[in-house]
Structure formats: C-alpha cells, structure tokens
C-alpha cells in the first residue's frame, strides 16, 4: 500500500475574524473534507471526481501536507506522514509531487522555465552539473510537447495549456513515486492531452509510478484510472474499479454525473440534468445524506441518518440508503 488515508477531515472557520466576533456573529464551519477513507496501491491510479467545491483540491493539499488536517490519518508506505519532522518532510516532498490545479499561480513569474524546471533537481541533488540539468530539462520539455525554444522564456509568455505542461514537467523532474495531478490536463487540446496521458502511462509501466488523478473530464478519468472515488460535499459517496463504476454506477450522484456528460457528437442527445434543486452546502450541513433535497431516490431515513460507505461486493463501496 503506497498511500492510505483514514478519517481525513478539514474544517475551515468562516467569520472567524475579529470583526465578526465583535459583531457577535456565530462562527460557522465549512466542512471541506469530512472524514474520508481511501487507499492507493503502488503502481495504481486512483481517479478522484466530484462536484466543483466538494473538497478534491483540499484533499490533495492535505495529502501533500501543504495544509494540516482537522482530524484523520495519512499513511505513506505504512508510516504516519503527519508525524514526519520538517526535515524528513522536506526529503519526502521529492517523492510526492503535486501538479496544482492553477498553473498560473504556481509558477514563479520572475524565473525562466530553465530555472523553474532545474531548481528542484538541484535541490534534491538529482543532476549535479548545469549541463546535465539542461539536458534533462530539454528532454522533459520535449516529452510534454514543448521545445528548446521555450527554455529561456518566462511563465507569462506562454498559453494556458503550455503553462500547465510546464507544471507537469516540474512534477516529473524529480523522479517522484506518487504524482497527485489536480486537473493536470484540463487546459490541453485532446491531441496533446492524449500525448500526456500516454506519457503518464509509460512512466507507470517503466517506473511503477502511482497516481492520484483529479479531473472533471470523465472520459479522461475512465481512461487513466484503475479505481475511481466519487466525492460529494466533503464525503466519498462511491468507489470501485473504473470499468464497473462507469458501466453500472450505483450512487444517485454518480448516476447524475454520468448522465450530464456532453458527448462529442452533435447528433447525440444533449446532456441531462437529473439532480433537482439547489446545490448542497458544506457550511454546517444538516444531518443525514448530503444529497438530500436533490436526490430522486430520497426516502424519510435520508434526512435523519447519514449513510455509511459500505461494501457491496466486487471491490465496490457505496454510501446510500436506497440502493
């Protein structure tokens, strides 16, 4: 087991500032990630999907310890990652690389691409001489569909998709074991996207890389993932092998998600919105299932008791009272 997450929780305080306190406003809790469990085996790809704002990026930042959890455990190769000293954590950063959702903010605007891509190698002592590093940078650029003409440019001199590829190259530059991609191919045309997904596949075959892959494009998720976890407002509502989950989704939210995919064929039916009502809120959510009020299968119990994530066979788990 490469990564194991248990009861992972992150609550943010709203109105926690001094002005609100003076005004006597009650502090509210935004439950961004609310007790999730998942694991990823070595050499495996877990796809993470879910509603915008459901806690995917927060999960990625917790697992890389960019933020500390409110509760829960993160185990890397059976060790408690949260107990790592800052020195140990610094060394471990090389092994867990995060491709940020927003490349615009994650690349230093004052550094050239050569600097951005070679600095991590230098820090971790991966390529000793400048010439070695330059060669490695050129190779990385070419693999992500860029070239030598880009090496001395600054981040603002690129298109959105080119910046995204620089962020991918940076993550791969230090030979990581686990790559967490937060929407890593969302700004790419489908041909370059195919090239990058094939690259991820090659690296997995060759070096046994493990991926946590966050994406909204469900065909990309289906293509790249061995297993998939579906989140809804801070909770995992369904997990299972990719093929089974896509062919026979069990949770009403997963079903709604698959029904809303627009197919790349103007002759096909347009996507359907099967969830009614307003989006569910993570701020002091009411008890019961988070899909309450929107779910086509809702019954009386749903608003009272939160459905636990239970095994349903075939390596699948679902959290729903009315399967």
């Amino acid at each position, binding site marked *: 087991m490469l990564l194991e997450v248990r009861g992972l929780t992150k609550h943010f305080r709203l109105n926690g500032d001094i002005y609100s306190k003076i005004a006597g406003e009650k502090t509210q809790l935004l439950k961004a990630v609310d007790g999730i469990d998942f694991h990823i085996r070595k050499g495996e790809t877990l796809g993470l999907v879910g509603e*915008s704002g459901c806690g995917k990026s927060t999960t990625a930042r917790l697992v890389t310890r960019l933020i500390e959890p409110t509760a829960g455990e993160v185990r890397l190769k059976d060790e408690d990652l949260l107990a790592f000293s800052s020195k140990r954590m610094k060394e471990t950063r090389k092994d867990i690389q995060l491709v940020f959702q927003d490349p615009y903010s994650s690349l230093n605007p004052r550094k050239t691409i050569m600097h951005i891509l070679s600095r991590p190698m230098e820090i971790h002592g991966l390529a000793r001489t400048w010439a070695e590093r330059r060669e490695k940078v050129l190779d990385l650029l070419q693999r992500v569909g860029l070239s030598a003409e880009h090496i001395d440019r600054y981040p603002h001199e690129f298109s959105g998709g080119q910046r995204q590829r620089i962020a991918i190259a940076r993550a791969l530059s230090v030979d990581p074991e686990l790559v967490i991609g937060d929407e890593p191919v969302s700004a790419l045309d*489908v*041909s370059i996207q195919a090239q990058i997904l094939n690259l991820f596949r090659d690296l997995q075959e060759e070096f046994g890389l493990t991926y946590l892959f966050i994406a909204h494009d469900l065909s990309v998720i*289906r293509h790249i993932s061995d297993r998939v976890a579906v989140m809804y407002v801070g909770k995992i509502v369904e997990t299972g092998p990719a093929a089974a989950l896509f062919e026979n989704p069990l949770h009403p939210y997963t079903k709604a998600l698959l029904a809303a995919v627009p197919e790349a064929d103007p002759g096909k039916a*347009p996507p359907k919105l099967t969830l009614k009502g307003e989006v569910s*809120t993570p701020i002091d959510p009411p008890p019961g299932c988070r899909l309450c009020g929107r779910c086509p299968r809702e019954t009386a119990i749903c608003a009272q008791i939160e459905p636990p994530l239970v095994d349903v066979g075939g390596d699948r788990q679902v959290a729903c009272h009315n399967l």
Partner: protein
Amino acid sequence: MAETVLELDDLTVRFRLRRGDLTAVDGVSFSIARGETFGLVGESGSGKSVTARAIMRLIPDPPGEIQRGRILFEGNNVLERSDAEMRALRGRHIAMVFQEPMSALNPVFTVCEQISDALRTNLGVTKKEARERVIELLALVGIPSPQQRVDSYVHEFSGGMRQRVMLAMALSCNPGFLIADEPTTALDVTIQATILELITSMINRLGMSLLFITHNLGVVAHSCDTIGVMYASHMVERGKTRDIFANPQHPYTVGLLNSIPRLDTQSKYLTPIQGSVCSMMDPPAGCKFHPRCTHAMDICRQKSPEFREVAPGHFAACHLHNRG
C-alpha cells in the same frame, strides 16, 4: 440572416521576444452574428486566447503588437478606438471570462467587492443594490450558501468556484457580447450543464453573442452553432458544428477528433496526432501542419494553402482541396 456583431478581418498579432519574433495569430478572419455562438477550438498555443485578448484590446504592447487586420465590433474598428472608448465598451458591451481566473481576480478584495465594482461603474447602482445583485448572481452560477460566501476572498474558493465568480462578473452587466475563454474547465459536468443553460438563457433573452473558446469537444458539439479550428496561429477550418463533426475537411481536425478519449470503452493508449507541435518562432514553410500530416504532398512543403470554401459554408486551408 441576423446582423453581424463582430467581424475579424486578417487579424495578425506578433510578439517581439528577445530571441526573435513570434507570430501568435496569423491572418485570422471570421464573423459572429447576433445570438450566435462561435466555438474556437484547436491546439494548445495556437493563438486562441491571443485572438480573444486582441478583441478586448488587452495585448501587452510591448512586446505584443497588432500587425495587420481589423476588428469590427458593431461596425466600428476596435483598434481605432481611444482608451476611454474601450473602457466604456469593456464590461458593459463586451465582457470576457479569462482562461485563468487568478490572472483576472484580485486577491485582496472580497468576491462581493470585485463583482459589485463592475456593477457600480457600469450600471451605477447603489452599494446595497449591488450586494443584493451579487448574491443573486452567485446563486445563479451555483455557489452554495451565497449569503455566507459573498464576503469570502477568492483564495477561499475552489478552482471551479473562482471560475464561476469570473463568469458572474462577466454576466453581471448583461453584455451583448461575451468572450468565454475556457469557462468550464474547472467545473464538474452537472455544474457545467447548469452554467451552459444559464448562458443559453442569456442568448435567448438578450440576443447575446458568444465567442466560446474550449478544448471540450463535447461542450462544443452541444453549444456552438459554428466552429473555427486553429493550428499554429492559423485558422485551418471553419464551418457549421454538424458539418465539422460529420465531415471534417482538414487533416488536423481529423486528428483532433481521433484523439478524444471515449467514455464507453477503456484502452491502454490513446492516439494523439503523430509528430511534435510546430515551432512558433521558426515555423515550417508551406502548410504549418505538413511535418505531421499523413497526406502531405510536395506542394504542402512549399506553399501555404488558401482558406477556401470546400462545401457551402464550410472552409478549409488544405492543398487536398486545391486540386483540379
């Protein structure tokens, strides 16, 4: 035929970089009618966002420069407007959703402050009215508990929520023309569908026109009337959505459609277009796609193909269509 709202004629944009010149957009022409949705798709780095920024007159100069061409908005050349006239046009008449929200949102202002700023300058509403309107807009774009989130800073929002803040800002003044550069990349498909419905309702209600830049060919298939395909700073194909999907005429478009991963099957490897992307500083002679094209002929290496009508309303720039 509805009236033309935007017309680009031979737009050419160049960046002067330390290492030499980079032509980001080369001779691009198209027009958009009232109520029409024009989808701009194509290779990453091919000049889509630069085209959009040129329409808004937001190309940084230096190093950027509009070398040739005209951009007619409601009959007047945008390139000849004064800066003051441009400020009056932006936001109120032409609004834009930028590809990277953080490049356009200000981290030190709250969501309410940013959106109401646009409302107050463009529509002259009071502070209180603006706040009410912002809450309404946040609800429209699917932000849960908008009352509680309106005073948040953008760093407290998720990627997709930031994108929706940008969209709410762009739609706040009911613009007649919207440029949306990748407005749904950070949205799950159900919220994406909600947003597309919202945009469609504005097209129907206000006759809004839309320049829609996206890599999501599923979205294009269901939202756009017309499509333009770009490769290496050129527009290589343009036509009605149905025609482009059913009968793509340029080898790049064909390759692009073949690269789409499928939802109903799982394959180990995908099939990207072979070869590597073309250099923008030192592009190949002739057709820019020839080093990667399986149909390339001698003439392709020598001469740029003309953009010509290959079927009624369907244009392509490829020598395969020039024979005879």
